[in-house]
């Protein structure tokens, strides 16, 4: 089991690392998808079936499409090879600062959380229990998340929608 975990970790980290290094944006995006698949595999390893499948459905199925769409629509396919300017001290410093901030937030979150049941066995959760938990005690959080996502979606539509121009050939 530990061996499987190590392999999954290696897959996630390696594909993410290679995605960062590659100059071809599409390759990077596809490797990112592979990394997400690895995370889904990790959830499966941990016994969280539902989360794993949701991860694949949402990330591999939908988010990856959005990423690829963004890459394809913003630049011609021929220029997928990025011309990244040379590394400067400023860039290195900015990168290190951003990475340090993210790492410190994550590290703080990990360190300050009390893992109460870490020593005991993981509870056998069925999808039904999960649904009951989400719709019961955590309903407020779920609703707030939903509202935020909907507002974001509507905002995106408003920004993206062009001024309606009447087109004679379009009937509707």
């Amino acid at each position, binding site marked *: 089991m530990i061996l499987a975990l190590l392999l999954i970790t290696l897959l996630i980290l390696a594909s993410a690392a290679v995605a960062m290094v590659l100059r071809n944006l599409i390759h990077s995006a596809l490797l990112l998808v592979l990394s997400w698949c690895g995370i889904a595999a990790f959830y499966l390893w941990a016994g969280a079936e*539902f989360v794993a499948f949701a991860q694949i459905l949402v990330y591999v199925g939908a988010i990856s*499409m959005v990423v690829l769409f963004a890459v394809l629509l913003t630049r011609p396919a021929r220029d997928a090879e990025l011309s990244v300017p040379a590394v400067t001290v400023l860039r290195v410093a900015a990168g290190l600062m951003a990475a340090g901030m993210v790492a410190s937030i994550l590290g703080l979150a990990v360190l300050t959380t009390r893992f109460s049941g870490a020593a005991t066995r993981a509870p056998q959760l069925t999808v039904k229990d999960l649904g009951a938990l989400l719709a019961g005690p955590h309903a407020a959080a779920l609703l707030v998340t939903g509202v935020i996502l909907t507002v974001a979606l509507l905002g995106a539509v408003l920004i993206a929608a062009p001024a309606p121009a009447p087109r004679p050939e379009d009937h509707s």
Partner: protein
Amino acid sequence: MTPAAVPPDRWLELAPLQLRDWVTGFLPASLQWLATGLITIVAILAVFGLLFAYLTLAERKILGRIQNRPGPNRTGWFGLLQPFADGVKALTKEDVVPRQADPVLHYLAPVVLVALSLLGFAVIPFGRHLVAVELDAAVLYFFAAGAATELAIFMAGWASRNKYALLAAMRALAQLISYELPLLLAFVPVVMLAGTLSTTAIVAAQGGWTLGVLPHWFVLTPWGFAGFVIFMIAALAESNRSPFDLPEAESELIAGHLTEYSGFKYALFFMAEYFGMCALCGMAVTLFLGGWQAPCAALECIPSYAWFGAKLLTLLLGFIWIRATLPRLRMDQLTRLAWKFLVPLALINLGTAAFWSLTAGWTGGLQLVRWAVALALVAGPFVLLGRRLSRGVAPRVYRYASS
């Protein structure tokens, strides 16, 4: 509404399992689990591989008959060996890779596509005892595997370095984003009513008959029928079948993402398309048509997998029939149909299903009220929305053609 008494398992019902156990019996006990899994995989591959082969033949024959010609009838008796001749042809053809193509992705795309499209078969209950993997979240697993297939189509289109292929890749992505939602929304009522995401439990929830003849399949309820129709339309789009075959529109994009593929890789794409079609139809059978359940109590003597097969074949023939009839949609019509028509209807259908579930206790005259309200909730929005969306467009007037 009482579930029928479980009938005794006849030997035909158990025959596949007994055959498997007989074969694995020769192996040491430590290897039996592996052999069991392998035999399941091989059985699924063999059955659906053959089904793929003969589905292509059936499609060509039926399309031919509909177009007033006999279809392939030279290779073997009634053309029955045609799929194998096609296979040999595909295997012996040169495998051309364009110099400009991305070699790794170009090679990986068909492999990934076939692998992903095969994943769905794992959770479909083909018979009373025939399901490869029992999963708690089986329906979710199925759609997660299905959603990933478009990624492979994108890989194929992008890696070919061909403008037609790239356009096809973009279309495939747009189509997936449009139709994933109605597909998922269409089966949510089923999950709601059955109270589970497990395919075996969903089939079990549709067991039993009223008066011994009327099966309790979900498709025979108002919300189930609407959900089934929405599901099948979205499934057509998901499997890139006509009239939603925009990614491989022959008349405008040569063959779309298939343009730069040849030889057996080309055949692999077709295999994946048919596997995906079979898997989606199998899921539709499981979710709405009662899975392996017999249509009436008297016909239970026929083994369950035969019923599943019959229902699956009916749906597949329906796909072929639709392909022979309907012309291809334009891209904007495709997305408009999904977002303006199917998604609202699916959402309303969710409400209908909720009503149906809340009024499960109504009896007598209230039962009639329940049916009337549910039918109105299904038909009303369909008619109103349809009329609103087709205003000014339908019925179509041909200015110069009609005298």
